[in-house]
């Protein structure tokens, strides 16, 4: 068990009840520094529940979650200082301007106000958003908001990043930039949890893939390992095979035949 020592995240027997339904059925997981984890699974598999549990948003789970070697259930929130998070729902206080929002978030992470402002402005500039830094977030387009969310998750230079569909709404050029940012951050030793439904991106970005299905980890390894083990070419096919989904042709056929009845 020497892996426990350098594991940034270590989860043992994580179970979670929602109502009377077991949404997580015992997750065991060790994550080391510098890994980019493609965290995938069908809707309702328990992906965001796991992430929420690690962020301390979900209470009432069973099992152990250790982050930086420390059990997070002791009520000390200090570990969150080293975590960055982009939520799937893209929640943001849109009555605020980007300056107000980002400085606020920086302060919540314990940064100095002036420093947070300076850094946020510099990051906004690299994303070509300098001109709208003092405009309200409500007037931003989807892609602009997503970039602000990315900045807000990285402002305090965290060691772990939880990204839930971080590329949604971004154009192809911005996607390239963000992918490269992720690779560079990982090379510096940061750990990235990348959760998405777009398999092509996950396939390219991550160096470890974890597939979750109905509350359990059903596959864990690098893309190449999974390719070899399951004898499939793309991550999409691997996903279909493991989750036991074969009827896509039947469903499509049925759908189209209904479309044709007028």
């Amino acid at each position: 068990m020497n892996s426990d020592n350098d594991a940034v995240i270590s989860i043992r027997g994580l179970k979670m009840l929602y109502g009377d339904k077991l949404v997580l059925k015992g997750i065991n997981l060790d994550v080391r520094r510098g890994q980019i984890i493609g965290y995938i699974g069908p809707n309702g598999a328990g992906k965001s529940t796991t992430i929420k549990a690690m962020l301390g948003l979900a209470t009432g789970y069973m099992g152990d979650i250790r982050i930086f070697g420390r059990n997070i259930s002791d009520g000390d929130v200090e570990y969150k200082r080293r975590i960055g998070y982009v939520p799937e729902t893209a929640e943001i206080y849109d009555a605020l301007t980007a300056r107000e929002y980002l400085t606020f978030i920086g302060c919540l992470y314990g940064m100095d106000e002036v420093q947070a402002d300076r850094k946020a402005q510099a990051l906004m500039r690299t994303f070509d958003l300098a001109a709208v830094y003092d405009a309200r977030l409500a007037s931003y387009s989807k892609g602009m908001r997503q970039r602000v969310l990315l900045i807000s998750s990285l402002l305090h230079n965290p060691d772990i990043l939880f990204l839930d569909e971080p590329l949604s709404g971004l154009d192809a050029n911005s996607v390239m930039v963000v992918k490269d940012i992720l690779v560079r951050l990982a090379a510096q030793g940061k750990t990235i949890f990348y959760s998405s439904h777009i398999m092509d991106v996950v396939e390219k970005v991550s160096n470890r893939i974890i597939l979750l299905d109905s509350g359990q980890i059903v596959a864990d390894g690098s893309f190449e390992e999974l390719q070899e083990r399951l004898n499939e070419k793309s991550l999409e096919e691997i996903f279909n095979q493991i989750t036991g989904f074969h009827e896509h042709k039947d469903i499509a056929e049925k759908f189209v035949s209904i479309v044709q009845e007028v």
Partner: protein
Amino acid sequence: MKEFISLKVMDRLRSVFETLGCDYRVMRQIVQVKLTMDRRRVPTILQGTARRTSRPESDDKNSFVPSLLLYAFMGLLTVPFVLMTQNYMFQMSVTFGILMFLIMSSMVADFSSVLLDVRDRVIISTKPVNRRTMSFARTIHIMIYLFLLTGSLAGAPLLAALFAHGVVFFLAFLLEIILMDIFILVVTALLYLLILSFFDGERLKDIINYVQIALSIAITVGYQIVGRSFEVIRLHIVFHTAWWQAAVPPFWFGSTFEWLMRGHASPLLILFSTLALTVPIVSFAAYIQLMPAFERKLQKLSSSSARGRMKKRAWSRAISRIICAGNEERAFFRFASVMMAREREFKLKVYPSLGFAMVFPFIFILNSAWSNGLKDLASSRWYLSIYLSALMIPSVVMMLKYSGQYKAAWVYRTAPIQSIAAIFKGTIKAFLIRLFLPIYLVESVVFTAIFGIRVIPDLVVACLSMLLYAVICLQFTRTSLPFSEPFQVVQQSQRYVGLLLLLLIGVFAAIHFVFTLIPFGVYIYMFLFVLLSGAVWGAGVGFRNEKLLVDPASHLYPFRQGE
């Protein structure tokens, strides 16, 4: 971000917060952000008046301070009751009743979004902010809001109490107001908890929406009667305490004054006063106990039970078949009916005017009864005041083109709609059948009760002319398709058109009056109207504006930039 005075006051207590185990710097930041966001919202009390013409980004020009001024004005309502001297129990109970209603409904209408902000969880709870700091920030924020709200409302009555009844009365009043605030806070939170235990977030938002509508109506009505309210000072009030009053909280607060200031130590009064003191304190303790349960329930807000029920729409389908010609018109009739019934922002803007439409004719009748006596009323021509209920038609018809989700109107352009007339016909019919006629029917029943069966033909004629009036209103205000514009856009020119249209209903009423002077004139008028209306609706006069669909100058850009 602005530095708020309240924050500076709070800074003086910094060491207190820190000894209580709260990260003061972070808490201050959270409260500051929350106050900034509050200022950028338009409060319900100003919904009707605030035209958001200034560009949203331009500055911190806020509607919060003006709303406080309006609250201060509403506070004047209670002053005459405070100034009375004959029965403290009655006058202070009424005062507390008004204050409680205004504070509680404002709390629900405007502060719900704050109390129930689910974004807090995702944005703040994922950061290294400990729970104690967060709950302190929340509590402080609520306290600042309640303080400002209560301060502006109760300022005038408190001053009146100080000058009319002295310092002791004033202090008792102040203390009871604080107890009342605690009580309101707890009751609101428990109410939410109760609703969320049984229903999902969508239902709660619906209930909040109705409270907002009620508040808008109350504010407008209050506005009208502030001046009149001083007449109560002259009235002689006979009031008896009774057991049932224990169930009505304002009586608890009122009783203290009767007991302590007047020395009427009846058991009931003492009981009520004890309730006024203990219930807020006990419920506050319960509230602290229930806080974690409340936070848990809040998660339900963002979720809604996705499984909807398919409602039986047989009768609505039948109506649409009878009154609508063609599939397009029928489709828009049903679409508009659903939008009017469901869209909260639309309801908030439109339903209050429906409320006034109900009330206005009766206010006029009461006025006349007040000055001329009830005896003559039944035989008079005051039933013509039913035309006042048509006052809402122009404003509602103008509102039909707005929607919170105006961007979804791109479907009009991408769908191969044959006739734009069908869109407008379907929509206006939906308005008339779903909103206007039910109200008119209720009014007619009451009018028949007051004036007798003889007015029924007149009511029919008035109804016909209002239907025609609605079509005319539509013709003059129709600049874009239904539900296709954001609420912020209020065109200046439209308001003058609205004024002219208001005059027009006066003309209709005047013509009606002239015909009532002729024997059987009503029937002649009715006959003429049937012909006219038939011609207008049948020929589809006034429904031609095909260019709205294709003209790029129309306001139908599906993907309008910003706002």
